């Protein structure tokens, strides 16, 4: 519980130190869940996990404009759910299943954050009670 290791060695802002973890974890949970709240975006993640897809290909699949799909992809990219890579003149979108698993781990980080907060609340109540009853 809490102190999860993610098994990743590079690129994760979550490895700097525990305090950064707490702050980043909250932001990351928020981003991931927001990104997955939309049906099209969920579908993009699933499709791009099966195979890298171009934005053009995706926009055909959803009968959406290139720009609209690009917007969805940008939200997913920010949440770390997909990555974009260039292949010649096209940009390929590739799904990142690790982030889905990380969401579960982030929930544990969030839990650890609240355990610490409850501990500090207790300390304040104890200190303040002592002051009031010398």
């Amino acid at each position, binding site marked *: 519980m809490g102190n999860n290791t993610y*098994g*990743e*060695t590079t690129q994760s802002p979550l490895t700097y130190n525990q*305090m*950064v973890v*707490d*702050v980043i974890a*909250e*932001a990351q*949970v*928020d*981003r*991931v*869940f*927001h990104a*997955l*709240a*939309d049906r099209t975006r*969920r579908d993009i*993640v*699933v499709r791009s*996990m*099966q195979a890298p897809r171009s934005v053009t290909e995706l926009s055909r699949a959803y009968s959406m404009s290139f720009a609209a799909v690009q917007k969805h992809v940008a*939200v997913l990219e920010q949440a770390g759910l997909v990555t974009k890579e260039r292949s010649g003149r096209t940009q390929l979108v590739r*799904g990142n*299943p*690790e982030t*889905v*698993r990380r*969401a*579960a781990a982030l*929930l*544990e980080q*969030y*839990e650890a954050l*609240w*355990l*610490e*907060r*409850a*501990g*500090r*609340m*207790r*300390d*304040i*109540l*104890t200190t*303040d*009670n002592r002051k009031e009853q010398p």
Partner: protein
Amino acid sequence: MTLVTTSKDLDALTMVVVAEFDAGIEQVWQLWADPRKLERWWGPPEWPATFTRHDLVTGGESRYHMTGPDGEQPGGYWQIAEVQEPTRFVVRDGFTDEAGNPAPGDPVTMEVMLDEKPGGTRMTLTSTFASAEQLDEMVKMGMEEGLAGAIEQIDGVLAEAA
């Protein structure tokens, strides 16, 4: 004697923290309502929180930032949806952009309930993430469509890297 328990529901993406404090309900309420008290526990010692605005009333708003060891200041906001002093309130806790406005992304909903019990106060905090069902659906859907295989693949890669 302080008791803290937590439980999470991964499917519903909710997390419940129950803490029992040896203090009266009014004192525990003040930990939330008084911004100077709130600042003492919201952020870890290395990331102290500063509430520049805080109004724990129905329809009220709060703004805060945390200050990191390198001077970075991530900011957040609360939208206070419901308040029944001193037993219950519901806030939506989200992040702010550089200008201090709510950033895109769904906030986390926190419901805090306080109950008096012999010798103290029980606090029950339920955090709900905005798109719990969607995440659940996503995971299930992904499993059907080959995500399980992709995860195994990634696990393999990670094991090699380790």
